[in-house]
């Protein structure tokens, strides 16, 4: 157990509404990541953070924003959800002494 929780675990929302997903870690790791998983695409990096208020874009960042005001929380926001953002979203952390990431349980988001 890497001490990562994601909330909500499931969400259904309508096109055009804002949505915020939360990732929480208990061990104060510096690096945190948001991925989306879609059939046939594997996992693709949306945004990542390397410290409080330090974030950078990943491969599929369009339509998403992130914030990290505390070490333990990394928020992913869809400003105006679209059906193409229906996906499973995973948060991950990178422990300080390793190179492998550890993943949260995921959030299944459906945009109708």
């Amino acid at each position, binding site marked *: 157990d890497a001490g990562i929780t994601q909330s909500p675990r499931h969400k259904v929302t309508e096109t055009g509404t804002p949505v915020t997903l939360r990732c929480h870690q208990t061990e104060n790791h510096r690096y945190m990541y948001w991925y989306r998983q879609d059939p046939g695409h594997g996992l693709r990096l949306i945004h990542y953070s390397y410290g409080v208020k330090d974030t950078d874009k990943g491969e599929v960042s369009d339509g998403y924003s992130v914030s990290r005001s505390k070490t333990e929380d990394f928020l992913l926001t869809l400003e105006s959800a679209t059906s193409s953002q229906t996906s499973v979203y995973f948060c991950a952390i990178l422990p300080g002494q390793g190179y492998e990431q*550890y993943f949260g349980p995921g959030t299944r988001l459906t945009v109708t």
Partner: protein
Amino acid sequence: AQSVTQLDSQVPVFEEAPVELRCNYSSSVSVYLFWYVQYPNQGLQLLLKYLSGSTLVKGINGFEAEFNKSQTSFHLRKPSVHISDTAEYFCAVVGNTPLVFGKGTRLSVIA
């Protein structure tokens, strides 16, 4: 930047048979390599990793992988699979950019 190609999207195999899941990578810098497993409706779990040293690495659940630098490959193997190995397997690489994943291989073990 790095990239990963998993050569098979689906691999069906009979129980107790051997299996190999293929992974090739591309990178202009030295890399670290990983295999993750995702059981149905679950998150990702680290199966094994190659950082340095011996090119044959062993992971959980009897899996192993061999790093081949000349062929830029990191194939995953298991000598005898079980029904419980049915899952999706992801190869991933990190070099000078964050972790990059392959598209996954769905392993189906048939009784």
